[in-house]
């Protein structure tokens, strides 16, 4: 055996909780909803042991509002929910973006619209990436596919949230949350030490002015800007920040060098796609995988590079929804900097479980340039 720490077999949801706590999270606010209940359950055990706080709120509205208060205090804090619960959090999410607060939210998405079901779905892509709340709020969105990534991405989420003073959402689904896999509980290379997070919050957190010494001026954390020109200035500041976030785009490209067809998929669906691609490549098909790790900022550059490297190369977007990320793929390839490429779409219906074998046929059809029926 290597020197690596022991692997433990835990659910993605539990990995989220361990990752958050190890990354420095000290407050959790939530409300029960399937399929993410292992997160609050784990947090209610873990946080009190280390002097942190766990509060089961009266609603997701309350939970997200408590998160706002804890984040304004500069303490690494999070909430988690799913589907309809995340909808209820949109108000606070918009306020937290407007107030420039480092909130971390986890959405283990379930099927929708409405109450939907408790199975996996990627129907919340638009809500997560385009912003489900009011105003020009943008949030970094990370999309884990494995339990290990659930652990690792919590470090990245807190690091990004505090670096940019902006909410970060971790978007999984019922499969990512419920899958049990081996996880090594060791901080990933992009982790920021909890002391560093505290340093980043020191210039703006509310804490009682006396903590900053005698005669310190009071601080105010807010999103309202009524005086003429002040909201414009705030939005310019946010725009510049969103631009800077583009440097955080991450993706994984696998087997793309020789690929005539690149399948674009994220999260749990990318796993099924990867297995399908493995099987098809064994049969000689030239097909590869492009997996966005950040859904916002979207990895435009990576996609464009793939398109430019091999003109005529096709792209097939596979999502478990009616077609959401495909719009961002098209924007990347057809937008101002893109030179275009053939972009096909295959949608898996929410409420069904996606396996690799089912995905082989649409990929084969896309390779042959034939119509795919979702």
């Amino acid at each position: 055996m290597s020197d690596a720490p022991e692997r433990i077999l835990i659910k993605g949801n539990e990995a989220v909780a361990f990752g958050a706590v190890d990354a420095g999270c000290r407050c959790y606010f939530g409300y029960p909803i399937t399929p993410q209940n292992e997160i609050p359950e784990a947090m209610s055990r873990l946080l009190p042991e280390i002097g942190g706080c766990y509060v089961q709120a009266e609603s997701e509205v309350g939970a997200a509002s408590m998160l706002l208060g804890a984040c304004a205090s500069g303490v690494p804090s999070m909430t988690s929910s799913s589907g309809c619960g995340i909808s209820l959090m949109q108000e606070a999410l918009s306020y937290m973006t407007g107030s420039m607060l480092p909130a971390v939210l986890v959405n283990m998405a379930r099927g929708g619209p409405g109450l939907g079901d408790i199975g996996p779905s990627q129907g919340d892509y638009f809500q997560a990436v385009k912003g489900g709340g009011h105003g020009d709020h943008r949030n970094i969105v990370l999309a884990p596919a494995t339990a290990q990534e659930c652990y690792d991405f919590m470090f990245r989420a807190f690091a990004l949230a505090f670096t940019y003073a902006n909410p970060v959402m971790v978007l999984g689904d019922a499969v990512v949350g419920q899958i049990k896999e081996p996880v090594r509980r060791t901080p990933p290379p992009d982790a920021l030490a909890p002391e560093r997070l505290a340093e980043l919050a020191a210039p703006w957190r509310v804490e009682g002015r006396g903590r900053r010494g005698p005669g310190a001026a009071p601080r105010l954390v807010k999103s309202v800007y009524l005086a003429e020109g002040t909201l414009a200035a705030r939005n310019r500041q946010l725009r510049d920040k969103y631009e800077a976030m583009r440097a955080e785009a991450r993706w994984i490209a696998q087997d793309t060098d020789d690929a005539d067809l690149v399948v674009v998929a994220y999260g749990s669906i990318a796993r099924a796609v990867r297995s399908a691609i493995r099987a098809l490549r064994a049969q000689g098909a030239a097909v590869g995988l492009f997996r966005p790790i950040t859904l916002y900022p979207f990895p435009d550059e990576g996609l464009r590079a793939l398109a430019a490297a091999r003109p005529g190369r096709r792209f097939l977007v596979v999502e478990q929804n009616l077609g959401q990320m495909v719009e961002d793929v098209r924007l990347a390839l057809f937008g101002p900097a893109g030179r275009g490429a053939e972009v096909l779409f295959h949608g898996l219906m929410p409420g069904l479980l996606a396996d690799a074998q089912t995905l082989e046929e649409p990929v084969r059809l896309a390779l042959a340039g034939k119509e795919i029926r979702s």
Partner: protein
Amino acid sequence: MTASAYQDVIIAGFGGQGVMLVGNLLAQAGMEYGREVSFLPVYGAEMRGGTANCTVVIDEEPVGSPLVRTPLSTIVLNEPSLARFQPRLAEGGVQIVNASLIDRALVDERRRTVYIPVNDMALKIGSVKMANMVALGAWIGATGTLPLACVQDALNRVVDGRYAKLVPANAEALAAGYDFAKKQTA
């Protein structure tokens, strides 16, 4: 990766038959054996019809899809599960079928099957609650995916500390199923 290193199984039965526990045990053992594993309990629509099921994948490289449409093996503990998963079993795959609760006439003779009375065997060992362990033992015997001892040892991590005294009996149940399958396939 070699083709033989990959193994997957769907374990299905009534809620309460311990389907999730043996799935968990298998994944834990696979991990301790140094393999990559995934264990996925299935919720929602899949829970209708009186069955609970989970999928375990064991591989030498990181697991891709944690779900399989045509499993290489199944463990079916009740009739609804047989009806659901027998048609999906991959060609050449093996199924462990609970003879205590499932009519032999329902078993597709073209399928490689270990037809084993897990409830009756478990009762003899001490408790019908260990039927799931007998079935998993039979699966180990039939597939050879992991050493029996490795799975028996993993019981110590999977069984809650409060029930530690039940570990030896569960290990015995695993062995009984294992021996049954070995004899049948010998």
